[in-house]
């Protein structure tokens, strides 16, 4: 991919749309994937549990998800289950895959299929841009700008684990309005199994959102904003 458009024009349009969508607020939410075997690693309370839609069958469908305390369904294909999920009050985050180095045609196709899903299912909570393989900086920022254009009034998530901390922060200037990842009240020591941890603290998330020019707010498992 080469940048054949103006990075700054794209970014400013995306950032303006983000500001408009949420009155200048940016969000952070601590999330944890729920595995079909019942594991949801991580000691922190208060994390939003999500499940990939392809794992639903192994845990008893949406009823099982509800019982496990899951509030978010992550989906990438637009399956019929989404109607039920939305009806039953789950939040649905649409995974939006992309790959650094793919052609403009491939990229356009991806965005078109996401648009089709958004058109088909109203009530989606968020787009969740998800790099396939190692993300690249400018390619990612351009993709986030495109996602914001695709979903101007919804949440666009910047995943700190998939993107890394710095690129994740930068996405807030290019269309993302929400940082997601393991975000705790205190940092755990990076030792043993935690040596390569992507954990960040709420203080850091707030600083990063502020540095991007947005007002930081915490989102809870319910999707509502905490009273700061």
């Amino acid at each position, binding site marked *: *991919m*080469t*940048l*054949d458009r103006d*990075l*700054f024009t794209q*970014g*400013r349009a995306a*950032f303006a749309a983000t500001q408009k969508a949420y009155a200048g607020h940016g969000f952070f939410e601590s999330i944890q994937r729920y595995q079909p075997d019942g594991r949801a690693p991580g000691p922190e309370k208060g994390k939003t549990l999500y499940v990939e839609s392809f794992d639903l069958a192994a845990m008893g469908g949406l009823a099982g998800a509800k019982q496990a305390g899951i509030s978010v369904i992550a989906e990438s294909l637009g399956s019929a289950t989404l109607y039920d999920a939305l009806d039953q009050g789950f939040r649905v985050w649409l995974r939006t895959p992309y790959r*650094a*180095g793919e052609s403009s045609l491939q990229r356009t196709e991806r965005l078109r299929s996401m648009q089709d899903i958004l058109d088909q299912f109203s009530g989606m909570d968020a787009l969740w841009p998800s790099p396939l393989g190692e*993300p*690249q*900086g*400018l*390619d*990612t*920022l351009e993709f986030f700008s495109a996602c914001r254009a695709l979903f101007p009034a919804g949440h666009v998530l910047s995943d700190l684990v998939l*993107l*890394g*901390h*710095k*690129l994740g*922060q*930068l996405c*807030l*200037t290019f269309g993302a309005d929400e940082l997601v990842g393991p975000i705790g009240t205190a940092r755990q020591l990076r030792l043993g199994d935690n040596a390569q941890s992507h954990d960040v603290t709420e203080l*850091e998330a707030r*600083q*990063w959102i502020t*540095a*991007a*020019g947005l007002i930081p707010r915490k989102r809870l498992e319910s999707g509502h904003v905490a009273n700061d």
Partner: protein
Amino acid sequence: MLAAIQAKIRADRPLSHADGMALFAHPDLLELGALANELRQRWHGDRTYFNRNLHINPTNVCVAGCPLCSYSRKNPEDEGAFTLTLRQAVDKLRARLEVGDRVTEIHIVGGLSDRLPFTYFTDLLAGLKQVKPDLKIKAFSAVEIVHFHEQYGFSVEEILRKLKAAGLDSLPGGGAEIFSPRVRARICPKKCDAEAWLAVHRQAHRLGIPTNATMLFGTVETVEERIDHLLRLRDLQAETGGFLAFIPLPFHPENNALASCPMPTAAEILRTMAVARLVLANIPHLKAYWISLGLSVAQTALWFGADDFDGTVSEEKIYHQAGAQTPETLSPAEIIRMVTAAGRTPIERDTLYAPLTPAEG
């Protein structure tokens, strides 16, 4: 306010301290980036420079013991302390050459040792040149030069002449940190002060030795102190013209005594890059040192004023001790891929920014 600054930049008029403060306070990061990019485009077009370089750190034994440092050890007996023999140091170059790495530059910085003779350093330069005579050696920060002066009793000029005779081609920009005495007292109290740092570079420039300059930001300095730092560099450049590149370095807080300082945010890093490009309009190159910035921020910085991606950087130790998550080396092919993906044209360069034959993996 930005319109007035833009007019100054387009008229090639230097920015004031107040202009710098206004740029740091400007709420629109992308507008700031676009302005820095305009100047970058005027000077360099899409060209983005990189080189094939090898880092050699002769020793991490250091008498300074700076709170900001994750790398040094006080005594040779301390755990993790090392001092390379001359043979070990030269073998690092030989090893790279034997695997076909066409290294063009060696970057040498190390601790302030009170155990090594001065001939260790001149022999090191000569030994490396003997292995590859066309190699360019960028070695010893101004802080090390001042230490040599204090340790061995030669004048700074004599030190530089002796090192040049042994093979020194340029000086790196390290040790500048932040020039403010208030900040230096907190983060590196035993390093030479700003006047001494600038005097070494002035002397080097007079002897025909080009140098780089750095600024370590994100510790305890104020924005005002950053601007002051940039303006002092700009003044020296106006006097000598000897600086090749400016390298902003965000502070990495792990494994050192300043761990309570949060690492600068990505937005802060890009903002500082952009402001540096605009304020230091008389230093030709702005380097996005990917080891320190991280790959994604370094690539993005190529649109916020930076025109140099640094190099392949084999064997970087100092930032990795401080928690840098970047790889310790990149191949030329990886650099070319990242620069090209940023919409820029990669140009392999030598130490003095002369383009080399078309870059290849």
